[in-house]
């Protein structure tokens, strides 16, 4: 799983530009699943036929980033955010473009952090004028803060983008156990989650599952100055009850908790008072389906140092496999 994560982190996939990552994951998934196809929006949909209920797991491939709007006379690159960018976290970061060009994200000189917003930032790619810059980047190119993967003490790691490549890695690792699956299983690697849970909607419409389970990261209540929240780092796989986009199916939540207990998988309940995930769009696609979500507790989400405990991710992986192999 962590080997997958390290690979996935290296492949940039800003919302709307996930194709390269989709092809990489597809290459791996084809080893374990019967059918793997990419739909009109770019979602990777992998199917392993089975006798039981139709169960769909979904992890989003896209990461937050930026898109070039224009280049000014000084050769500075102006941009718009793609997804929820915190510019305090992004200021003075190194960024990397899809074509490998590097730059630094810089606010206007003297700007107070309270006034940080996209219009006040540029990316300095080292070009000496507009002409030179336009040879390197053009309107519509996407880029992101540099990827990284760092081991902290014990079982904790930090880096970016953990959101939601850890979930992609979990599903890829789960696929290796495909022989044990009892249900009819679809893994969706979705696009454009960070810009408004767009891709999973059409993927779920296509698959019409009985049950849909999204895998994503969630905030924790145990960080420095965190809002009160029951989820803690190292507390196990978080089984979502609710976030601001979805109320999970009560019976499915109970089933997930029961399966986790039976397999002695460490778990905790999650009520997130903000944020949304693909769970919501899967629930309301076509005529609707019963949904739940498994979350990896994560500190410092959407910064360059998203931090997780790998034991939690391992618990999430075990829960995915357990649900796939339990007749629902």
């Amino acid at each position, binding site marked *: 799983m962590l080997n997958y994560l390290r690979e996935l982190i290296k492949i940039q996939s800003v919302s709307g530009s996930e194709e390269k990552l989709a092809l990489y994951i597809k290459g791996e998934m084809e080893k374990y699943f019967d059918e793997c196809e990419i739909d009109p*929006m770019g979602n990777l949909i992998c199917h392993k036929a089975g006798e039981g209920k139709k169960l769909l797991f979904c992890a989003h491939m896209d990461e937050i980033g930026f898109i070039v*709007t224009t280049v000014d006379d000084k050769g500075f690159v102006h941009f718009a955010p793609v997804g929820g960018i915190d510019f305090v976290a992004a200021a003075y970061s190194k960024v990397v473009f899809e074509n490998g060009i590097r730059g630094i994200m810089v606010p206007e000189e003297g700007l107070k952090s309270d006034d940080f917003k996209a219009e006040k930032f540029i990316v300095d790619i080292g070009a000496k004028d507009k002409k030179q810059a336009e040879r390197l980047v053009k309107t519509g190119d996407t880029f992101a803060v540099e990827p990284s993967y760092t081991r902290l003490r014990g079982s904790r790691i930090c880096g970016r983008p953990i959101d939601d490549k850890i979930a992609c890695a979990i599903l890829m690792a789960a696929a290796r156990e495909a022989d044990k699956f009892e249900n009819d299983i679809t893994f969706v690697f979705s696009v454009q989650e960070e810009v408004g849970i767009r891709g999973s909607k*059409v*993927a779920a419409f*296509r698959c019409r599952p009985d049950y849909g389970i999204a895998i994503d990261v969630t905030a924790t209540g145990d960080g420095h100055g965190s809002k009160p929240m029951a989820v803690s780092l190292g507390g196990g796989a978080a089984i979502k009850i609710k976030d601001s986009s979805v109320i999970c199916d009560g019976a499915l939540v109970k089933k997930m908790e029961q399966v986790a207990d039976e397999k002695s998988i460490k778990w905790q309940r999650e009520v997130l008072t903000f944020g949304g995930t693909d769970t919501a769009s899967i629930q309301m696609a076509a005529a609707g389906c019963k949904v739940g979500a498994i979350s990896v507790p994560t500190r410092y989400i959407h910064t360059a140092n998203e931090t997780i405990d790998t034991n939690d991710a391992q618990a999430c992986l075990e829960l995915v496999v357990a649900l796939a192999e339990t007749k629902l």
Partner: protein
Amino acid sequence: MNRKTEGIDLLRALCLEFGPSGCEDRVADLIKENIEGSYDELIEDRMGGVVALIRGNGKTDKKLMLNAHMDEVGFMVREIRDDGLICFSSMMGPDTRIMAGRKVTVGVPERLTRGVMAIKPVHTVDRGDRDKSAPIDEIYIDIGASSKEEAEKYVKIGDYGTFESDFVQFGENGRMLKAKALDDRLGCALMIETMRKIYANKDNLTYDVYFAFTCREELGMGGVKCTAHKVRPDYALVFEATAVADIHGVPEVSKVAVRGEGGAVSIMDRHTVYDKELTQLILDVSKEKDIPCQIKKYVSGGNDASHIQRSADGVKCAVISAPCGYIHTASDVVALSDYESMCELTLAVLERMNENA
């Protein structure tokens, strides 16, 4: 009366017609008359849209949908006062700067009345507020009635309204067009002209092509949602108008598009990341055929593409927008050359998609 026209006359007729969001019937009728004889089948659209199909020759089972919205920004009658003045809710966003003194049309398709947007005279306004635009609840529509009873003969609560604004060609050699509702009657006119040309040569058409003239785009409610779900196209091309911000005083980096440099193709806006292949195909065709077009330089706005893209199991979408100055006012201004080049580019893109099929 034969209302079938073409070129500038068609564009003029469409812009002058009354069709605020939710009340597009008159525009729909005008479009139906103009596409008569240029399609194989009309598809029922319960949201009030006009959807026409030109069948392909069966070489591919892929379906293509072209889309433009019929509705324009407008307002709705909220209350009729004892003195006969009318209070209204805006369906054009909160920008009241564009309202005072404007001529308007109020009513429903079969009963329309003229009026003006009235504000207090400046000497009765607090000094500090004189350079601010009046809030919406201090702007009234005066239809020339002297009492509530008289006004109610012509206007009812829930009636619709739009600006009344003439269609003017101005500038050197008439290079600019000014009208209300160029957003998006320009897209409608483009689709009508395209239908006529394609239908005349339909033997070469490989795709089934659906022409969807849709409702309620300006409210964001996407009448097109249901249309797209029903048609289930594989590809969709959306024809729109976009803000330009190419005016003096707007920082260089905030400029969206430039009038006169061709239709603007979007990579991403606030609601949609467009399909890369389809977008690239448009840019390639533009380059090869030497038909001007530009990339929209700002991530802003949104249009029916968002609803089409995420309908059913997903649709590959691209958008071409006419750069439009002062958009959503009584005076939308576009360059005639942009309209002409967009028409030309559309045909060339369809031809390329035909070849590729």
